[in-house]
């Protein structure tokens, strides 16, 4: 089965029903997306499918076929962090860091649709992502900072 992952065509040898998350992690060694629940409840496995955030643990390979899969590994380009990544560092929006990749991917997806979201819109867009360490307020702040960085003409604007 052929997939386009982070802009590169990859051939994988798994059953079409296999969750995208296991293929990314175990077959393609892209371990940025994490397993947290296996039922699409925690958001740690979030990746982008044609730019929209999906839970890769409940997305089958066949659903991903023919679409562009974007994972956290591709956000940094030429040593330059994506504005959302930079904002998560600047706002100290991480503790154990296990949810961070999913949070960042959901935030990237939100900012594609809404370049200047307010706190309520951020909460709503990230409601499916759990941070058990309770870093939520700083994550909201990070997304606000990222929005400003992006509209300020950063490399990914």
């Amino acid at each position, binding site marked *: 089965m052929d997939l386009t992952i982070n802009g590169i065509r990859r051939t994988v040898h798994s059953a079409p029903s296999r969750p995208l998350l296991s293929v990314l992690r175990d077959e393609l060694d892209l371990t940025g997306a994490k397993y947290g629940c296996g*039922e699409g*409840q925690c958001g*740690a496995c979030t990746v982008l499918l044609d730019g929209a955030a999906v839970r890769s643990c409940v997305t089958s390979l066949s659903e991903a076929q023919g679409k562009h899969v974007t994972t956290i590994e591709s956000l940094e380009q030429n040593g330059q962090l994506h504005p959302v*990544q930079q904002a998560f*560092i600047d706002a100290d929006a991480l*503790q154990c860091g296990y949810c*961070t990749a999913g949070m960042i991917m959901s935030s990237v997806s939100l900012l594609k649709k809404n370049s200047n979201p307010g706190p309520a819109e951020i*909460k709503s867009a990230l409601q499916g992502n759990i941070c058990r360490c309770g870093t939520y307020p700083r994550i909201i702040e990070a997304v606000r900072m990222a929005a400003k960085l992006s509209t300020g003409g950063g490399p990914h604007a």
Partner: protein
Amino acid sequence: MPEFEIEVERYELHADPSYSFTPGRRDFLKLMGGGLVVLLTLNSDANAQQPPAPQDIGAWLHIAESGAITVYTGKAEVGQNIRTSLTQAVAEELRTSVTRIQLVMGDTMLTPYDMGTFGSRTTPFMAPQLHKVAAAAREMLIDLAAAQWKVDRASLAIDDGRVKNPATKASLSFGELTKGQKLTRTIAADVRVTPATEWKIAGHDLHKVNARSIVTGKEKYTSDMKLPGMLYGRVVRPAAFQAKLAAVDVEPAKQIPGVVAVRDGDFIGVACDDSAKLDQAAAAVKVEWKTTPQPGSKELFAWLKTHPAAAIDWKPIEADVQIEASYNVAYIAHTPLEPRCAVAQWDDGRLTVWTGTQVPFGVRNELAEAFGLPEDKVRVLVPPTGSGYGGKHSGECAVEAARLAKAAGKPVKLQWTREEEFTWAYFRPAGVIDIRSGARKDGVISSWQFHNFNSGNAALRSPYNIPNQITEFHAAESPLRQGSYRGLAASANHFARESHMDELARAAKMEPAAFRIKNAGEPRLRAVIEAATERFHWGQPKSRPGQGFGMMAGFDKGGFVAACVEITVVNNRVRVDRIVEAFECGAIVNPDQLKNQIVGGMIMGLGGALFEAIDFDNGRILNPRLSRYRVPRFNDLPEIDVVLVDRKDLPSAGAGETPIVAVAPAIGNAIFDATGKRLRSMPLKLA
């Protein structure tokens, strides 16, 4: 190093061992040399024989010829940010940049013995220890330079990773001075550590040292590891707790190409060359379990007071106002976002296990016992870990992975499913707390009798000025396996105590904040109450229907806390609008990360206060999924305001735990304020 005391509330795991690896199978006999091996996770036994902390600098700190500084500590980073705060401690004393320092954490082969990362002990004990270690190294570097230059050491300065001679403008890097040799000098007891008031690096905001690795997805947690030839493991679990194996056939699983299946006593598991085969392989094992009836959540609180039967010896109360009440606390799950995971590898009779644990030396002990190995043949390493909150003290997953790897003859990674994490780990203890109290007309508490069943004895005593208070902890037979949790007993005891304080204040016809201040003899307790109420504007009139205000105060593990909350109750649903929490834990080490810990604890506390409870019956967990066990999410977020009370004159205490205890009682008291209904059971549910 300050004496480590066994943590008062540290909970033993009372449950039966997960497995008895029994002899009988030929491969296992070879391994064990026969004999019954009982696997049990009682770290307290290991604690009793803890070796003394090493006295030489070299055991803790190494400076390579390149100048790279490596620090060794047995503590584990599980998100509480000690990798950064301990790095700051070393940078401070060595007068060098944090970027030159690398911490090796929780590696039983390389780091000095450590009891474990729990009880908010890293900041009060390990940070001062590393301050001393690095200060001793600093003095040694100055001595080395003075000897080399044949000058008085007092004429030298140390700055920016170099020892400098201001008179000659000469300077030597740390690496040039040590030449990579082991620093064998003993750490002097009176070595001059930098006072907190002079800190330039410690005590200041610093981004997490590994933040970039995390935000780029490069940070390798245990679950991200892949060793050459590694297999993926899965344990075939019993149908219920205490179930006995009636019949098993692992042969059908073994028939699947690339699958190894193992049965050893009651342990059954599979390992596969492809993770896609795990479900099929586990399902192929034919197994029957014999289950036994067990109590469920419905009869839990009555059970705890009757197993064993314990009569409370109530003393007569003489007071103008007397009340009595009983409070309940449910079992809750830690729910770390990374379920337990371990990678195990055997090599010529030596066992190496990577696993996310808060107690690496305890896990080494468990592995050594399970496999009949001397401890020096077992190495446990703790990679970055997707949080713990007191939930990763035990080594079941490590033992299981090691058993599978032994059978497979290859490295095995075992990642528990979320359902396994919810079922086969352990829980924060449930509890019942009965209180009888009395107060004089003027609001002075004259009698206080406090009996806790099963939920633990930390913060059992009231921090208020009550001379003849009676407090007692009654151990019970817990229906579920229970253990440590972020502020476990302190949460239960503060919920009961501070709810009861509110009830007693109202019975004495006193305003709750004034009642607490009146009875707070300890100035530090009064200070946090005043800080919280002032910031909150406590005493403001209500402005809308359903609105309620509640407060609490307390003390545990060296930290004083007070909180005020504002809620709105609509259709029996509680919305928390605002929480102000004041916290004082002595001298502040890193204010930004301290706030992160406090806010994190408060948000986690919302779950236990409002919705988290393990539902169980007959040895089965009935809500072992995130879709059935609700944890706090973005939309549960109130406005949060943290007031830090900095006491530079006092030693620093940890902050990972105590802030969480404030949430439930303050909300419960606000619910009473809003509705007139007193809820005495956590989680607090109106309908």
